[in-house]
């Protein structure tokens, strides 16, 4: 049997399409974890990245934090947090957020910092307040890069959110963890395929957002 057979067997089994362990339920759980983690990481990473990038300060500190964040093993952090806090959503969210902050923070900082200084100078010289300089001059130009940072964070979250299943939560990781335990490789491959598809859909979603949100003037010249 090859992988494609596993995939076909998994998706054609009607039992996998409903109930608390059905694909729709697990997909929604996975999506919820991912969106929550991404939102939390963005709420922390975006403002810090925007402000540090605007004032071009704190780059060294940021890259230190980013390197540390990337070096932390998500699975180890999950186990540690579960031991410290106990079972629940919080110990799952912490490693996912820690994983997602560095790409968001660092790309946002770099994106804003590297905006061409002459329109910024022109904006200040025309009497534009600093907040407008940031949101109306720098942000629109930095947006493609910032979205790129959010996109890689989102994809990492989607792939890593499978670990939630190790601490008895749901999500697509459920199929992988249970399948491995039950030696049910059909389930393992099915779960992995769903994660891959979700990652691709995430890519597509960011592409669509960029199409809508980024000005054609920036898209073409950038």
């Amino acid at each position: 049997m090859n992988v494609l057979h596993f995939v076909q067997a998994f998706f054609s089994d009607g039992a996998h399409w409903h109930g608390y362990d059905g694909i729709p339920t697990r997909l929604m759980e996975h999506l919820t974890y991912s969106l929550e983690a991404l939102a939390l990481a963005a709420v922390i990473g975006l403002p810090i990245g925007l402000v540090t990038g605007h004032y071009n300060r704190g780059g060294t500190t940021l890259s230190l934090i980013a390197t540390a964040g990337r070096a932390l093993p998500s699975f180890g952090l999950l186990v540690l947090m579960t031991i410290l806090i106990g079972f629940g959503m919080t110990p799952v969210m912490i490693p996912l957020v820690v994983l997602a902050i560095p790409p968001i923070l660092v790309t946002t900082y770099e994106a804003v910092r590297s905006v061409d200084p002459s329109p910024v100078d022109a904006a200040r010289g025309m009497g534009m307040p600093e907040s407008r300089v940031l949101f109306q001059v720098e942000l629109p130009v930095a947006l493609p890069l910032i979205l790129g940072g959010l996109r890689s964070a989102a994809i990492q979250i989607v792939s890593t959110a499978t670990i939630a299943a190790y601490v008895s939560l749901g999500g697509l990781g459920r199929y992988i963890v249970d399948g491995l335990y039950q030696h049910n490789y059909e389930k393992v491959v099915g779960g992995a395929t769903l994660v891959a598809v979700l990652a691709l859909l995430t890519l597509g979603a960011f592409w669509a957002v960029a199409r809508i949100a980024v000005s054609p003037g920036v898209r073409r010249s950038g």
Partner: protein
Amino acid sequence: MAGSAGSVCQTRRVFGVLIRIDSVTKRYPDGTIAVDRLSLEIPDRSITVLVGPSGCGKTTTLRMINRMVEPSEGTILLDGKDVQQQPVNALRRSMGYVIQNAGLFQHRTIVDNIATVPRLLGWNKHKARARAAELMKRVGLDASLAERYPYQLSGGQQQRVGVARALAADPPVLLMDEPFSAVDPVVRKGLQDELLRIQDELGKTIVFVTHDIDEAVKLGTMVAVMRTGGRLAQFAPPAELLSNPADAFVEDFLGADRGIRRLSFFPSAGLRLLTSPVVAVDATAEQIAARDTAGAPYLLVTDLDGRPLGWSEPGDLTAGDVRPERLLPHGRPFVAGTDSLRAALDCAVLSPTGWAVAVDAGGRVTGVVSQQAIAEAIRGAHAEGRADAAADAKAVR
């Protein structure tokens, strides 16, 4: 020195002082002095050019006017009021600001770029865009460019947008920081001519920074030459700068050909044009013979409309068989009265015969003039210039 130069000019000034820079110094924390006790009176409704080598503090001076840089000492008065006592953003919105690479917002369309300051001032979108469209026309941009993005425009067009954006809220003052340095010489000349035309129409108080002395002489009503270390070397109208540089630095900065360039300020109207060495292409043998004694070694042949065809030695001309292709080229003619002595001299120098061809606005020959005659006119003009300067000096006393 700066003060005395300023007072001489004051007698010629038609307008009042709008911006008064009063012993302003800019010192950076590391001890560098960018501008050193600079005093300058910038006249109303005219172009004042700050020119000097890099590091002379000209840009810093400009940026202190709209408080992009705060002075360490001294005051800058705008219309009698200290700029440092005014709310900074309101102050900046009252002055147009144009920078080297235009600094357009790439995510906004041309019309929205131009509407920036009106929108900041709270105009509604419709009114701001209507104003922007009006300005596009004023700076010579086609209305079809309104919805384009900056990357779709050439460097020269982008700079026009920069100027339009600075003019959008109709500020009395325009600050321009090397606005035309990044475009090629042909486009630059076009932009300079356009600026002079716009200035004729609008009469703004323009402070213009450049490192190009030719640009300074061409655009400036008054030119402030600054030297390294942020000191003022001379503040004078361009003609005076060229005829009377304050010191060796200014003389050196003006370049080796300042005498020639100064001729741009003398009109060619006073030149004595000779009409006798001019013959039409259908001239008879008698006419050619009559012209031969006119005192010029060559005859200028024109077509039947009076436009120049070329030069010929009188002996080479055969009545009824004048072949334009055999004539010596006449070179670029100058427009008598409109062009300066510099243009006339240039024509004479470039002409293979050493004689310049003068034409009227329609391109018809009004006469020819020799290098010697131009040289005499130059001597005459210089003598007059000295008399004027003496009269001015007397008027001040």
